[in-house]
């Protein structure tokens, strides 16, 4: 059906007349972890938004799973996207957000208890997400993203707000995910996370 999970050819994106991405090529195959690196404003997030089908390309072609990405349920059942902090549902605790995620997906990758343990949220399970610290909220977002089954993870700065120990732990979790056959594309400023991945800079030149 398709050889590689992601195929980007000659991708150019202009935002308000400014070229953000210019003639970018990228191929990602199954089980790879790709780190999109580069200075602020180099188009890392824009590339992720193009891959998620949320940003139309000015020219060029983007194919995910062999077809252009579409913002629909079939696409999101295979792709898990984590960019900015999501808006939490009112009236639910942190744990209940994970329970909801587990209840909606038939074959969750781990139990809620395991996720609470893994992301060190056990003590704060009964808190409303807004009462958690920035790092804890990011861990909750990551837990929700990794709890659900997916074939492709798109992460925008997953290290945001995390302490040094947990950044290392996150690298392990992503390696486990890839070992299970998943593919990861993330924009990151963390040298540790980038070192464990194939590095790509949005100008289209692989580092």
């Amino acid at each position, binding site marked *: 059906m398709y050889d590689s999970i992601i195929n980007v050819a000659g991708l150019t994106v202009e935002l308000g007349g400014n070229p953000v991405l210019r003639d970018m090529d990228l191929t990602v195959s199954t089980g790879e972890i790709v780190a999109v690196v580069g200075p602020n404003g180099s188009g890392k997030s824009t590339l992720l938004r193009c891959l998620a*089908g*949320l*940003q139309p390309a000015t020219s060029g072609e983007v194919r995910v799973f062999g077809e252009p990405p579409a*913002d*629909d*349920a*079939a696409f*999101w*059942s295979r792709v*898990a*996207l*984590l*960019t*900015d*902090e*999501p*808006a*939490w*549902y*009112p*009236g*639910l*605790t*942190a*744990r*209940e957000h994970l*329970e*909801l*995620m*587990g*209840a*909606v*997906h*038939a074959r969750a990758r781990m139990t809620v208890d395991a996720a609470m343990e893994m992301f060190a949220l056990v003590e704060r*399970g*009964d*808190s*409303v997400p*807004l*009462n958690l610290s920035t790092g804890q909220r990011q861990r909750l977002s990551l837990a*929700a*993203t990794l709890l*659900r089954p997916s074939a492709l993870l798109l992460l925008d700065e997953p290290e945001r707000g995390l302490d040094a120990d947990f950044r290392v732990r996150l690298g392990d979790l992503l390696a486990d995910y890839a070992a299970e056959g998943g593919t990861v594309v993330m924009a990151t400023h963390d040298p540790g996370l980038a070192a464990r991945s194939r590095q790509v800079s949005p100008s289209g030149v692989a580092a």
Partner: protein
Amino acid sequence: MRAVRTYLRSHGRAPATVLDRYVSLFALAMLLAVLGQPLSTMLGGLAGPVDPARAGAGVALIALALAGFLAAARAAGPVLLPAADASWLLLSPLNRRRLLARGGRALLVIAVVAGVLLGLGALAVLGAPDQLVWRLLGALVLGVSVSVAGMALAVLAQGSPSWQVWVTAATVALLVLAVVAVSGQARTVLAAAASVPLPSLAAAASGAVVVSGLLVRQAWASLSRIPTRTLLGSSTRAGHVATAAVSLDPGALTWIAEDNHWRARTLTSRRWPSLPAPLALAWQDWRRLARRPGRLAGVFGAVALPAVLAQAGAAPAVVGVMVLAGAMVAAAMGVSGTRRDGDNPALARLIGVGRRPALAARALLPVVLSGTWATLALAGLGALAAFGAVAPISGMPSAGVPAGALGAGWWLFGLLVAPALAAGALRMAERSPVDHSMPVIDTPGGSIPTGPVIWAATGVDLAVLGCLPALAALLSPPSAVGGLLMAQAVSGVLVLAGYVWRGRRKRAT
């Protein structure tokens, strides 16, 4: 303090000139000239006795309005400062009472206006058998005294917790009064109150003035004792309101209130029921609602309002619109998940349930809520008609018509409008923020900003469309409602199904 105000004024707007004052006075005079004629006609219409059953319901409505006034005053602060003053002047060594005096005067004006309305309302429901002018004056003085006293109580409560008990007690007493008045227990008392001799009225009015004067003096003295913390709290709240009103959109306001509520709550996680995916997603709204039983009880306590309105002699159209609007409010309580996903679809994408299954599953709760509300409200109206007190909607079974098939038909409307109201509530939850780039239409009566108007109408439009048969039945009651019931059943289901199936893509944000 005066120096600070002078400084601020000199750097702000230019002071009012003679021309400004002339324009204000002229506008006031014009307003009086325009409103004078209708006002005097209306006041003349107040003369004469009224039906005691109507008076009971009317007094209940006035008691509810006063309780709402007290609750709103408590919720607002009521003493607050503009956000800039709160952050720059409040934490300075300026005289606290002088700083707050301006806000205090504004509160006094608000209380006086509310009191005038209350007095007029009281006279309208009790009637004036004789001496209209004196009774009007007495009612106005009483109304203003009561509302000013209420505002003073609220100010005192802001400064000390012991006064808060009094505000709560007053609110509860008003609610009890409303229940007693509407149940008809107090008919003789009300009749006596309506035809109270003038000297007693004068005594009551002067007593009320003295009591409210004392309370106002206390409140004025307490201004300097209000803790900075509560002042800051109420002032930043007002700041939120102002920013949301001018720059963002009203939808942001409800999120601030909602998020603040949940931050302050202690919750216990409970297991998620094992349901099919879309229903498991929709369960969030059910759980949120179950965690706020007070709000649920409040909204469902209001099912009696249409019956009370009808008993107070409101027009059938007003009662009918009240039933639909109340049911729509009930439906809107159960759509927070749809609103959140409409504002920020990140979590919805992680959950990965399609838009149609999610909407269909999430429509269940608003359908149940609005259906229950409207059915109860219509059943209340039907019971009222069956008792023979009044026929609130002229086609409904009144004392003359035996309550049979027709009676059953009316409350069925409650169930049948539910899908349309749920569709309206969902559309309201999914609407985009106010589009301030929409043109402003200038009319002789003033300019109309179309953006906010369209925003406000989004959702209501769909509900009205789906409820047309029921509206037709409520506004001009037919002899047999069977045909309209059928039409309502079809239009309600069609509107909801159409809304759920309409293939609009999520906004790509």
